[in-house]
């Protein structure tokens, strides 16, 4: 295939050719970045979370008398255990993705202070007895808390509990003590210090920003007695078989409301909590999908429109070529090659632009670096789109009969 005539004819239509190149470049740049954003959000929405998400329901009980929680919590838990189908119940201060985040910064040396820049910010989960069972935490090393540790831990005036044991997630253990066993190591925020007694599989924090970073699993667990909880143990976590969950949640809410007439109850399945947390992320992802689809459609129509125009304009030349022996295939090839050339220039520009946009987004928005394969991926889709949209007009061009050459003047 000779491409020189194509260049010659494109030089004559410089402006439309430039326009189509720019349109393809911009479409390629937006497509790469949008697809990258979509994929990031989709992977965020599916972040792993090592608790029994399908089996957990929760009733949050607020406004109960803080002075009576020591006897109220055991009574409430006993009542919940009485519901048919309940496998485990416990109280906690919060749940992953509940937005109810209590953070604190710890150091690895006894003299670390909270405002120290070297301190590590983590999320605190205060849990009552049996929480490992109720949440379905997966213990990887060491142990969970024993009865004495639960009974002995309470809140004094400090915002940290008066105990000396902690369970951390695997990611946090690896980050704080790389290459070592976390068991027996200590987190400091003097006068409080906590020694790691167990490591559990990764559980998400109650809240994190727009983008999942390396900090999303920085969760820590502390035992807390009902009597010393000062009302922070407000989440009743109820675990059951998934098919029983809905019914058990209703019964549990009713029971807690009956037992605590002065308090405010709010029941949710864990799946709802998770869905709510990621709702705006998934709506953003859908919006981007919609934009990409419409954008590609508009680009395709643009190519169809312009090529059809060119075909119309060149009917005589096509006729002449056909008359001097070009086959239909040659004519088709001509327009397809022309489109391939334009698209190639477009995607080359577009990949550069996509890279630039990504750098800008990394600086000004919480965006990470786009993996390289998005660029050829975007290029390939626009090549295919270009070829698909040029096919119709090219076929029309190929069907121009040779006799046109003799007619039109």
């Amino acid at each position: 295939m000779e491409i020189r005539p194509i260049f010659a004819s494109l030089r004559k239509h410089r402006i439309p050719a430039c326009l189509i190149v720019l349109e393809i470049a911009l479409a390629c740049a937006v497509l790469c970045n949008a697809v990258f954003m979509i994929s990031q959000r989709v992977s965020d929405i599916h972040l792993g979370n090592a608790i029994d998400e399908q089996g957990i329901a929760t009733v949050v009980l607020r406004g109960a008398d803080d002075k009576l929680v020591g006897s109220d919590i055991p009574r409430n838990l006993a009542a919940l255990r009485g519901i048919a189908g309940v496998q485990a119940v416990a109280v906690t201060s919060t749940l992953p993705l509940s937005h109810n985040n209590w953070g604190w910064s710890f150091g690895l040396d006894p003299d670390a202070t909270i405002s120290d820049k070297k301190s590590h910010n983590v999320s605190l989960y205060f849990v009552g007895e049996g929480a490992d069972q109720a949440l379905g935490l997966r213990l990887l090393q060491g142990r969970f808390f024993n009865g004495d540790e639960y009974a002995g831990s309470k809140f004094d005036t400090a915002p940290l509990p008066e105990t000396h044991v902690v369970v951390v997630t695997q990611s946090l253990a690896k980050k704080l003590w790389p290459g070592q066993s976390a068991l027996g190591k200590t987190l400091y925020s003097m006068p409080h210090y906590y020694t790691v007694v167990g490591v559990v599989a990764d559980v998400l924090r109650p809240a994190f920003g727009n983008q999942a970073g390396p900090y999303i699993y920085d969760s820590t667990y502390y035992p807390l007695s009902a009597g010393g909880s000062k009302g922070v143990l407000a989440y009743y976590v109820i675990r059951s078989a998934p098919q029983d969950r809905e019914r058990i949640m209703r019964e549990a809410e009713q029971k807690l409301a009956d037992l605590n007439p002065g308090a405010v109850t709010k029941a949710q399945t864990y799946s709802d909590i998770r869905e709510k947390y990621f709702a705006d992320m998934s709506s953003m992802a859908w919006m981007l999908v919609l934009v990409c689809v419409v954008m590609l459609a508009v680009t395709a129509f643009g190519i169809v429109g312009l090529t059809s125009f060119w075909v119309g304009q060149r009917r005589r030349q096509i006729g002449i070529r056909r008359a001097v022996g070009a086959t239909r295939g040659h004519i088709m090839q001509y327009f397809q090659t022309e489109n391939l050339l334009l698209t190639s220039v477009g995607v080359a520009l577009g990949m550069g632009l996509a890279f630039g946009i990504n750098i800008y987004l990394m600086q000004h928005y919480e965006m990470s670096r786009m993996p390289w394969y998005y660029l050829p991926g975007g290029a390939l889709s626009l090549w295919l789109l270009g070829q698909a949209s040029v096919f119709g007009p090219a076929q029309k061009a190929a069907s121009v009969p040779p006799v046109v050459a003799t007619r039109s003047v």
Partner: protein
Amino acid sequence: MFAYYLDLALRSMRRNKVLTALMVLAIAVGIGASMTTLTVMHILSGDPVPTRSGTLFFPQVDPNPYSDGPSLPYDMMDYRSAVDLWSAHRADRQALIAHGQMKLTAPQVNLPPLMVQVLSTTSEFFPMFDVPFLYGHGWSAQDDASRARVAVISSDLNNKLFNGVDSVGRTLRLKNSDVRIVGVLGAWRPSPQFYDVAGGRFAGGQTGDFYGRTEDVFLPFNSSSDINPTGFNFFTCWSMPRSDATLQTSPCVWMTLWVQLDSAGKVRSYRQFVADYAAQQKSVGRFARADNTQLRSLMGWLDFNHVVPSDVRLQMWVAFAFLLICLFNTVGLLLAKFLRRSGEIGVRRALGASRAAIMTQCLFEAGLVGLLGGVGGLLLTLLGLWLVRRQPVAYADLVHLDTAMFLLTFALAIAASLLAGLLPALRASRMAPGLQLKMT
């Protein structure tokens, strides 16, 4: 002339129905997408107190006694600094603010107890922020000092508890104390809820919650600390509270102060006052850094907190890139269309039409495409905003198309299509009459 051009444009558009439809559609979706996102952006980045935002300021000091703390002052203040600055009464108006949650029951109302968000503040909050009242009024400075058990409630809560009737004088039970309602707010939905904005720079772009509804109950700060002394939310602490600490003496930041300063001179002298306070606190050993003070304006504070969620800004950029693609598309198609009519244009030129006349005619046609695209874009914008209102975001109920945005839709559509038509029109008008006649 107008009618003639209109006729020509309509004829030409009818001749290439598919091409015309494509152009109108491209403009319409481009405009629809960009106007939807621009409207959301416009609403979220607006001025929450248009009447006097220029006079509202947010003082900050750094109460950290250690010099190794964060380089910028905390987003909130400790009790002592906030109350010191407030009680000096050096501004035209000033209000302390702290947040908490309390259990609420209404005697004689048959509803289960509620957990409500409580804003603890001082009397000048209402006049300073121009807060509208439906019934009654705010409390007085006297009530602040005497720790009066009074409350102002939101119209939402008034509707929920009292079906919207005048509830001034009725009693609410907050935790274990009774308070008397002295005022019910009118429709007040500042966007964002600026006086609660803090910590935006740590939110990772997830700032949609700054656009939530106002608190349901407003209490005098002193009364609130009597009713529920441990019920305040704290922002952060610079060291571990000692075991005998109360919230008031704790090394934690949890209060904010807003001031109204009516002239540039007063702003200057207040800035000096805050700096002097920090210097004096440093000299008594309470602060480590005297130079770490700020007095940001309301809009400056909102900017600093990046209140507009990053997703909203991203969506706007995506939509404008999309509009640009649609424009390139339209330019290409218009060019194709005008050049295809070169014969007709040649005849007109040969019959004496000036270049300007040809250009005007082409632009007229482009403008008409823009107008039709604008109508389509408006419908798509309304559809887009309807979709935004159904999203699970705090600002969903704020989103609507106002007149300015309605007009902007058409202006943008016509400007975009004229811009798109300019190059093709220029090319068309440059055609030599004779050549085109010969060709056909």
